[in-house]
């Protein structure tokens, strides 16, 4: 924060606090006039020590804890963990459980992408889209609540299966919800592809070539928008994705606009996959028994979260508690892309650029400090956002 440059450059720290973000980043942008010349990141404001905490809890309690790594993609965290533990225990969850896991994961992806669409639009000063997409997001929240009983932490997974079931009534409701969402998603695609003001903020902004994306280790929609064909649901299918394959959706442009298009197209594919699951929902048991003590071993469980590749490394020493759990969240990879891609862009583009990787940015109070050897000025995130909007007006 005290960083000062002898050349009289501005160092603009952004962050540290960002409320709707699981890994609130504190960014520092060095600027020369209007152009960003360097960027660095500092995380840890919401670091709680979950990995250590997980070592003190038993295998079942950890589902509850790890679901709370992130409130937006809670289900996928629990899925990665349970799949890993099941692998260690040499247990395979029954097909119906796997299908339901996949179904909830895809619904969660829709909720996450719609949430992101709204937040990203808000950062660009397009509040109408924010309100619309969040209104429609309530549809998928209702579906998730109906299926699982909760709006945010679904608690669907247990070791060895799931604890919720679907019946005809629910299936009909899901289909109805999907029809509505599909229609709306087509509408949003039209908006992001045709609205002039929106295109002005997104096209050719933050362009990342395929080579860059691969080098910087981008994951998820951020990488796919640059043409990297990397989607674990396709490459290394888990849970129900063997049965119900998804399409790999990529774009070649690599700019912010492409990231919007990829995410919206992914939503469309989600609807297709969910319908397929509902059509061919396997029957049978919901869960199998998993021993209380998990056999010794190490495993890696990789899943595709809404934001990209999520990896769990789980080590057991044969006890009723894990020896080590390592969580590598997708946003961590994508921070690196922001700090590199930001260079050469205008300061006014930063809010959109940060929102583009979907670290779930939303309207809140992040402090922005403009430091200079002789003066120091604090901006809130809101100021920076406003600055960006005014700049393009």
């Amino acid at each position, binding site marked *: 924060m005290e960083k000062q440059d002898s050349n009289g450059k501005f160092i603009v720290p952004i962050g*540290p*606090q*960002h*409320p*709707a*973000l*699981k890994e*609130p980043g504190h960014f520092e942008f060095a600027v020369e006039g209007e152009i960003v010349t360097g960027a660095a990141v500092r995380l*840890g*404001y*919401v*670091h*709680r*020590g*979950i990995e*250590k*905490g997980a070592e*003190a809890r038993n295998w079942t309690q950890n589902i*509850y*804890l790890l679901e*709370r*790594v*992130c*409130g*937006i993609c*809670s289900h996928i965290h629990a899925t990665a963990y349970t799949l890993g533990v099941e692998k260690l225990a040499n247990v395979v969850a029954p097909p119906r459980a796997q299908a339901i896991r996949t179904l909830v994961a895809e619904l969660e992806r829709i909720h996450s992408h719609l*949430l992101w669409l*709204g937040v990203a639009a808000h950062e660009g000063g397009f509040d109408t889209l*924010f*309100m619309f997409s*969040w*209104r429609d*997001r*309530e549809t998928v*929240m209702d579906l998730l609540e109906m299926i699982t009983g909760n*709006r*945010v*932490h679904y608690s669907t997974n247990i070791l060895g299966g799931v604890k919720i079931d679907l019946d005809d009534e629910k299936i009909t409701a899901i289909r109805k919800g999907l029809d509505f969402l599909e229609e709306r998603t087509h509408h949003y695609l039209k908006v992001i592809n045709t609205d002039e003001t929106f295109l002005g903020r997104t096209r050719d902004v933050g362009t990342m070539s395929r080579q860059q994306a691969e080098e910087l280790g981008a994951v998820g929609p951020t990488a796919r928008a640059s043409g990297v064909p990397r989607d674990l649901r396709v490459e290394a299918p888990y849970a129900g994705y063997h049965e119900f394959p998804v399409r790999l959706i990529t774009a070649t442009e690599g700019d912010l606009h492409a990231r919007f298009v990829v995410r919206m197209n992914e939503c469309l594919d989600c609807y297709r996959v969910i319908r397929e699951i509902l059509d061919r929902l396997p029957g049978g048991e919901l869960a199998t028994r998993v021993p209380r003590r998990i056999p010794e071993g190490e495993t890696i469980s990789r899943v595709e979260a809404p934001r990209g590749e999520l990896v769990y490394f789980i080590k057991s020493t044969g006890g009723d508690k894990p020896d080590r759990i390592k969580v590598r969240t997708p946003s961590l990879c994508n921070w690196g892309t922001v700090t590199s891609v930001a260079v050469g862009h205008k300061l006014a583009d930063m809010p959109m650029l940060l929102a583009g990787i979907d670290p*779930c940015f*939303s*309207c*809140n*109070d992040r402090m922005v400090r403009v430091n200079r050897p002789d003066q120091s000025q604090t901006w*809130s*995130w*809101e*100021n920076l956002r406003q600055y960006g909007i005014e700049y393009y007006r």
Partner: protein
Amino acid sequence: MNEVKLENPWQQALDRVRSWARINSPWAIHFNSGSCNGCDIEILATLTPRYDVERFGIKLQGSPRHADVLICTGPVTLQARDRLVRIYNQMPEPKFVIAVGSCGLSGGAFQGCYNVVGSIADVIPVDVYVPGCPPRPEAIIYGVVQLLKSLKGETPDPQANAAGAG
């Protein structure tokens, strides 16, 4: 709160006007001191068309200097503790704090983790607690309403917890 008791009748009237205005349109600031996001997206959801708290005059503000109500989520992490206190100090008097979510109330699932100080009440005084992991948007609005009721001098609903937990 540290409000000075004013004897002058017209000052008292002015005070009533201020309090009326405050109750009619409380401005809130939202701060996450280590939450998992769950409560935060629900707080955001209260702003959006389905719940739309702005129809009650409640507005989410970007700056603590403009806010009457601090809506806090999450357990307090070591790194965020100072920020939370700083934001609280920046708010003008009188100020009120609403703690949202189980971990804001007690540390919740993160109790005992090495980077967690504890609940929000361990760091700053809290006026309203909204339980739930995360609480529904209705519950959050209900919590705000309870706060406003107590500002009017009414006793909060004794059923607050039962109904607010959603």
